[in-house]
């Protein structure tokens, strides 16, 4: 993008302001997400954990011998 020379200083200041604004906005939006989305799921999960039976642990191992070793995907 071509910025005319007289406007370059203003453009730099504007872009720096947009970075700051971006961080403020993303913090606000992420916090809203954290409260209303993660919070809701968290409360449901905690309630489910309360009612589920806690079995005594003879072992902490989890068997993964039948898990996929597919490498093409990030999941």
């Amino acid at each position, binding site marked *: 993008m071509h910025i005319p020379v007289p406007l370059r200083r203003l453009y730099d200041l504007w872009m720096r302001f947009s970075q700051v604004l971006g961080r403020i906005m993303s913090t606000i939006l992420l916090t809203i997400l954290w409260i209303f989305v993660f919070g809701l799921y968290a409360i449901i999960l905690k309630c489910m954990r309360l009612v589920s039976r806690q079995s005594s642990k003879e072992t902490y191992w989890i068997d993964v011998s039948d898990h996929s070793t597919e490498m093409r*995907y990030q999941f």
Partner: protein
Amino acid sequence: MNKPIYILGLSCFYHDSAAVLLRDGEIVFAAQEERYTRKKHDEAFPKSAIAHALEHAGITANDLNAVAFYEKPMLKFFDRILQTTMKVWPRGLRQYHLAMHEWMPKKLWTPQIIQKELGYKGKIFYPAHHESHAASAFFCSGFPDAAVITADGVGEWATTTIGHGQGKDLKLLKEIRYPHSLGLLYSAITYYLGFKVNSAEYKVMGLAPYGEPKYVEQMRQLIDLKPDGSFALAMQYFTYEYGLRMTGKSIETLFGKPTRDPESPLEQFHKDIARSLQEITDEAMLNLARAAKQLTGSKYLCLAGGVALNCVSNGKILRSGIFEDIFIQPASGDAGGALGAALMVWHKQMQGERLPRMQHTYLGNAYSQEEIEQFLKDQGMPYDTVALHDLPQYVAKLLEGENVLGWFQGRMEFGPRSLGNRSIIADARNPENWKKVNLKIKFRESFRPFAPTILEERTKEYFALDRESPYMLLVADTLPDKRREIPAVTHVDSSARIQTINRNQNALYYDLLKAFEASTGCPVIINTSFNVRGEPIVESPKDALNCFLHTHMDYLVLGQCVIDKKKLPPEWKRSSEEYLKQFALD
């Protein structure tokens, strides 16, 4: 003739970025990014390491058949990180924000970043984090069949696994999941003792011999160790799931003392805590070894993951006799994950043939004698040149004269240890060298021990070790009648972290030791990494010269060029304080 198959393995975005290049399954090049950027444990995308790897092989990214990334980023984020966020809610807001700001602009775009940075449009593979660790050990071991244990902080979910390697196949059988982690337990106590997490765990290991195991019972309240090798942490003592610190008030109440301030004086209490932690870690690792034996029935064991750098535990596993032989990946941390990822693709995806055991870690850049001389001339640095066949005797004489030398030769080592190509070396017989090298050269804590290099054929005369230890990953006792001979490498509890060397591994370094032995009768020298505290190990002649000039080393041997500090004109005098300021304390 078939075109060679090139696979590039990468690790980055957490700590210890690295790039590894395989050609038909053989390691052509391997290096950590920190060596080029001079930022310790650099986690950035390993652009420099990749560039050097491709240049070394004489190829471009277009010649790559595959790229392998050392873990599954989406699984890590959408499963473990978000689930943990919900689990600890309403705690953890700050940690959540930090994670989001890391992941959303960068880590979630790993394939795009790889494609853009490399100019690469081919296939990218994502073995799981602990599969990468396991592969880095098993496929480099030369064992046809082996049990594999991996243990670290955390990968996607797994923190500890037991697997079975057979031929070209490698399968993980059992795992323990976050937040229950031996690596994070060790890091949490590292934090409690005032040291830097993910950086200074090995210092806690070195501190342990100064202490007594007085707090083992309190440690058992932190971790429930089951006889079948599994374990779980008592999370009420740890804050890393939701906080920016590893531990809080609960652990201070348990041990009866507050968290140590970094750089404050160490007390006997701290040494006792370190020792107690080591006892518990040893017990946990031995339990894992027995469990691995029972699950797989194998004669051999492979170890990888950050906890496999705990060479005290490794030595105990070896001496237990549970396995006939063990192989520990020298780059056991996340840098080695890059190697393991590439090997997973070669063996499991491409059904490539197994190669013999990894013989050495000299896999990085080398600098020719011409390059070194040109560099020194450009700097106006006075030096002497010694003929290659005279160099061992010449340097051995310098060592005998109680000098401390910077030794820069051949290809750079891969992994956290210097093994004779980027090393500071000195006479192990001189007890003064312990203090001199710690305080005046490396500027590090005075309690830290030094490791010996010994001629392989004379190991049994000096140490309670009946096999090779080429990567400094095994600790064994110095024999009683030798402790007074080599005090500078014998720790307070008479142990030593040993490197054995034979001529096939490193001819020049071996010849140096032979020359020293011929002159003194002693086949052992001090070998410590060529860097100061907080600095990555030197990579280039420039790094080596900088480190040499700003410390109290007596000589620098760069290839066949020898620089004598005493002969340098006054304008070459440098300040250590200024040099050290550029490196964050580790």
